[in-house]
């Protein structure tokens, strides 16, 4: 049953003398600024008069004025004493969430704080080892010694690639720096991937290869534009304050999504355009829009002349150009990079880009495709400022072709390097990846045709039984990856179903047992997290380590406009929970590695600053300045509060200066001062010549896979696509423990069209199952030799594809927001993972899954309790305009 939730009708106000801490939201990419007010429970609360409370505001306050909701209050422990905390948006900030704006996620941050009298009591408090199937408390030393002993054995006998790590990419610089120093610096394992993908490398390689850095824009650009092309996301749902604070305040919106959302309703109410695409067909939509533009001569000639690489520039020299992409086989094929004339000739002669054909495949009416081209270019009249943002619906349905064709379309419209005319990712989580060293590609057991090594597909590596020790840090792994339930089965085989299970808490016997497991072909799993993770921590892990979370230690990271802030500690981690950097450092010491003797998070932050130099998140100047002023790096950043500073940080006239946008052709730079590095991409594109590149995107590279998986309607198959929903962050690890949020979404949902629902006898509030015995799973094939091995058809014909099963449950919501034949569900419900229905066949160019192209059948199970109970869930339409 759902949690008990009591909507309170009062809340304590922070007193005048409350301690104030600045921080930023723990959740989405936007990274709103927050303030935490803290005071002891035995001290009086603030009063309603301005002179009596910390806000200096009379209560009742008013519209757009400071306020505290009961869900913004909690009780935490500091040095063993209980304190009130109120966590509210910073009402004074001039950046990001101006005027105290917030989302429902960030707005309830206070509820995530550990308080044993709330559902957060489920936090992991102590290291544990699974004995006789049950996790039992041990001390840190024991847990780390067992890990080190098993790791040494694995490395000595099976090599680096048998020692794997699956980790978040974003939980703060201090942690990710420590993680990469261990994995890439000390162990040098290629068996490493981040939380949301099977292999390392760029998520939007098409942007990258075109010379675009994916977080180059500033948030202001999304407001300054006259028209926005938003692909594969509704920012209202998933990066809320970017939408409500910037995008809602100016530009006309063109939104490309398979389903109608609140953001679409808003866009249409303001003269915008909704392009409802069939999942996976964005490339053809981009090509068709581009073709309309070129046929009519609406492209930005002046920009193209100045900023698009010529064929000589593409083919010359070293550095980034399509002849020198990380994927050498593309060069072998020679069918991607081209100059403007080459692109124009190709597109105008390419049958898949024809309006009729593209309209038929994408499902977008021809007149809307033409209308989009007109809106983006002004149709020969005054050229509007057009900006282009994309996210996972775009790049996680057809990774390379979608991102490259998207960028080419945007470049034709003159976007990419001017205020209000930008191209970028809109983002999911924040940018907390600070690496010690690059991925050791030379050690990867996977290669492409030609001689180029490629980042290893870790999931396929696990499936192949090659991993003997895995350390999972803050990730669900199975639920977040494709063909989840099949993946869980493989994990279970290699861990719990292995005959060598721990039966004693004696350390030597534990090590002996686990080494026997490893030698018998099994796998040992360690999970570091804040809650028990289903099923990785609850079922598969032998060792579980408790992590300290947001607010429990000082940490740093950037948001989606590269804004660096300090996330202040304001209460103590529960039990023996420790920051992940600490666990890494103590493990590394037990392994005998040098350079891991950090004592504080600031030690890591300052060391990492040197490794950030010259990069997009370069904050070396901040630490340099801090040293001059006799401060620590963290202290200096704390002074910058919720405003922080945008990286790369430069020095001008002795003062720190942030960088608003990258590729900014209007930015004037003098001589580099102090530690400042003037990278070429500050003012130019990131390519050999500083110009952007147009990349051809032939549909044939994807078409065979698309045609094979396309739902067979006559057999009752649906697209079962997935995405984020406003009220749930990631796996819901916090939201499921916030009674208010949990009552809103006690279980996962599936939107289904009324016609389909009527045929299947489904009503809103019914449980349904979504299932398939046709989930494609690629196996083996790490050593590719010939170009045709990159094609799905070749994999299928040569025995590299097996068929798996999936069966997940959800509560139906009947709505015409989705088209017939398509179901939309939440992307990450660990207990019922939608990704089970997603084919585990990555884009061969980039090793990225087509997460949004799940397919399966549907049937009704019966009524859920929420159908008639007014307290939980709602089945009202979300696309109300």
């Amino acid at each position: 049953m759902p949690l008990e939730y009591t909507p309170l009708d009062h809340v304590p106000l922070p007193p005048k003398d409350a301690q104030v801490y600045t921080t930023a939201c723990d959740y989405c990419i936007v990274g709103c600024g927050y303030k935490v007010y803290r005071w002891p429970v035995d001290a009086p609360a603030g009063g309603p008069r301005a002179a009596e409370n910390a806000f200096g505001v009379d209560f009742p306050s008013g519209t757009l004025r400071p306020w505290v909701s009961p869900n913004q209050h909690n009780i935490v422990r500091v040095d063993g004493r209980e304190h009130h905390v109120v966590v509210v948006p910073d009402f004074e900030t001039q950046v990001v969430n101006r005027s105290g704006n917030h989302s429902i996620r960030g707005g309830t941050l206070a509820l995530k704080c550990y308080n044993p009298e709330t559902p957060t009591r489920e936090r992991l408090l102590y290291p544990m080892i699974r004995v006789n199937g049950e996790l039992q408390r041990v001390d840190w030393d024991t847990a780390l010694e067992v890990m080190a002993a098993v790791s040494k054995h694995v490395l000595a006998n099976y090599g680096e690639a048998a020692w794997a790590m699956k980790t978040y990419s974003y939980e703060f610089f201090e942690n990710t720096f420590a993680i990469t120093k261990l994995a890439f610096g000390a162990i040098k394992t290629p068996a490493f991937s981040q939380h949301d993908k099977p292999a390392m490398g760029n998520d939007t390689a098409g942007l990258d290869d075109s010379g675009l850095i994916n977080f180059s824009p500033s948030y202001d650009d999304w407001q300054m534009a006259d028209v926005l092309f938003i692909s594969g996301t509704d920012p209202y749902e998933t990066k809320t304050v970017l939408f409500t604070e910037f995008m809602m305040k100016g530009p006309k919106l063109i939104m490309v999504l398979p389903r109608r959302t609140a953001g679409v309703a808003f866009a249409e109410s303001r003269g915008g355009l909704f392009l409802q695409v069939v999942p996976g067909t964005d490339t053809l939509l981009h090509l068709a829009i581009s073709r309309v533009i070129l046929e009519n001569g609406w492209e930005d000639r002046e920009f193209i002349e100045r900023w698009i690489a010529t064929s000589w520039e593409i083919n010359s020299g070293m550095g980034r150009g399509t002849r020198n992409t990380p994927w050498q086989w593309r060069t072998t094929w020679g069918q991607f990079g081209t100059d403007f004339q080459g692109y124009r000739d190709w597109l105008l002669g390419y049958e898949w880009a024809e309006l009729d054909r593209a309209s038929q495949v994408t499902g977008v009416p021809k007149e809307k495709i033409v209308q989009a081209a007109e809106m983006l270019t002004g149709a020969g009249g005054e050229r509007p400022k057009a900006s282009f943002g994309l996210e996972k619906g775009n790049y996680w349905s057809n990774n390379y072709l979608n991102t490259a064709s998207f960028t080419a379309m945007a470049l034709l419209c003159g976007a990419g390097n001017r205020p209000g005319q930008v191209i970028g990712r809109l983002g999911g989580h924040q940018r907390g990846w600070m690496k010690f060293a690059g991925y050791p590609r030379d050690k990867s057991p996977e290669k492409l045709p030609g001689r180029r090594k490629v980042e290893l597909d870790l999931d396929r590596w696990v499936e192949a039984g090659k991993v003997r020790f895995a350390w999972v840090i803050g990730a669900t792994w199975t639920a977040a990856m494709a063909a989840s339930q099949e993946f869980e089965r493989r994990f279970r085989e290699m861990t719990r179903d292995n005959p060598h299970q721990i039966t004693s808490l004696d350390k030597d016997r534990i090590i002996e047992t686990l080494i026997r497991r490893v030698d018998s072909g099994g796998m040992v799993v360690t999970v570091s997290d804040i809650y028990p993770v289903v099923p990785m921590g609850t079922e598969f892990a032998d060792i579980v380590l408790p992590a300290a979370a947001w607010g429990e230690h000082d940490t740093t990271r950037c948001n989606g406009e590269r804004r660096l802030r300090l996330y202040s500690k304001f209460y103590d981690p529960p039990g023996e929970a420790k920051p992940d950097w600490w666990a890494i450092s103590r493990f590394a010491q037990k392994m005998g590695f040098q350079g891991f003797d950090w004592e504080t998070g600031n030690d890591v932050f300052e060391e990492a600053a040197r490794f950030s130099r010259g990069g997009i998140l370069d904050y070396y100047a901040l630490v340099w300045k801090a040293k001059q002023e006799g401060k620590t790096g963290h202290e200096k950043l704390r002074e910058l509060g919720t405003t922080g500073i945008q990286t790369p940080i430069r020095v001008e006239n002795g003062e720190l200066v942030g960088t608003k946008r990258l590729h900014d052709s209007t930015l004037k730079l003098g001589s580099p001062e102090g530690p400042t590095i003037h990278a070429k991409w500050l003012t130019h594109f990131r390519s050999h010549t500083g110009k952007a590149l147009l990349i051809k995107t032939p549909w044939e590279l994807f078409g065979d896979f698309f045609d094979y998986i396309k739902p067979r309607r006559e057999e009752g198959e649906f697209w079962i696509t997935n995405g984020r929903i406003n009220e749930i962050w990631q796996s819901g690890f916090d939201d499921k423990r916030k009674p208010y949020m949990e009552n809103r979404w006690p279980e996962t949902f599936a939107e289904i069209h009324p016609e389909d629902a009527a045929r299947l006898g489904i009503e809103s509030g019914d449980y349904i199952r979504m299932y398939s015995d046709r989930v494609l799973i690629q196996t083996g094939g790490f050593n590719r030799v010939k170009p045709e091995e990159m094609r799905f058809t070749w994999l299928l014909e040569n025995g590299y594809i097996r068929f798996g099963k999936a069966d997940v449950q959800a509560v139906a919501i009947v709505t015409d927001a989705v088209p017939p034949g398509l179901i939309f569900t939440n992307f990450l419900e660990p207990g019922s993972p939608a990704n089970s229905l997603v084919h585990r066949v990555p884009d061969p160019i980039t090793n990225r899954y087509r997460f949004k192209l799940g397919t399966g059948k549907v049937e009704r199970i019966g009524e859920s309790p929420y159908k008639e109970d007014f307290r939980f869930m709602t089945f009202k339409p979300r696309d109300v305009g």
Partner: protein
Amino acid sequence: MASKPSELTPASLQEPRCEAADPAFLLSRRQFLFGVGATMTVLSMPGWLVRRGMPARVHAQVAEYPRQTIARLSALRTGDVLSFNYPWDHPQSLNFLVKLGERAGGGVGPDQDIVAFNSFCTHQGGPMAGTFRADIGVAGPCPIHWTTFDLTRHGMVVSGHATLGLPQILLEVDGDEIVAVGVMGLIFGYYDNRVDPSA
């Protein structure tokens, strides 16, 4: 499920002084919320909040929610919207009462479809008056940031940013009179619904 007693009652109604005041009155409130025939159970607010909730100084100011007649049952037609102030004569105590035409959580009247809510969005206080959508039983979108609330499910956020549902005005029927008797959830701008802002 609909007749099951619920924890969804405002904290002030759950405190002992309330129950001592008039148990029958309390029962009728619950009937009001969860349908005639509801079994009453004694509920408590989370213990940790009872123990360390509000400072004593504020407790001293607490008043019981007043009873206030809002409308006549016989005069209401489906789709009708009435505005009224409650619990105080203060701009943010502006509420709206609607006859939804579909059964609703806390709904009164023979069809359990008459509900009332505060008119200010619990995100940043946007005015929700006039945004009621009779066709779908939703209030919204809020003109400022586009939040919507489900009026059939205690003002739950359908889509949007509010950290609290739209505060529901608890209603009961007394003969032909519809009477407001309490507020479930903190009103935007307030720190305590029970404190008269003009005092």
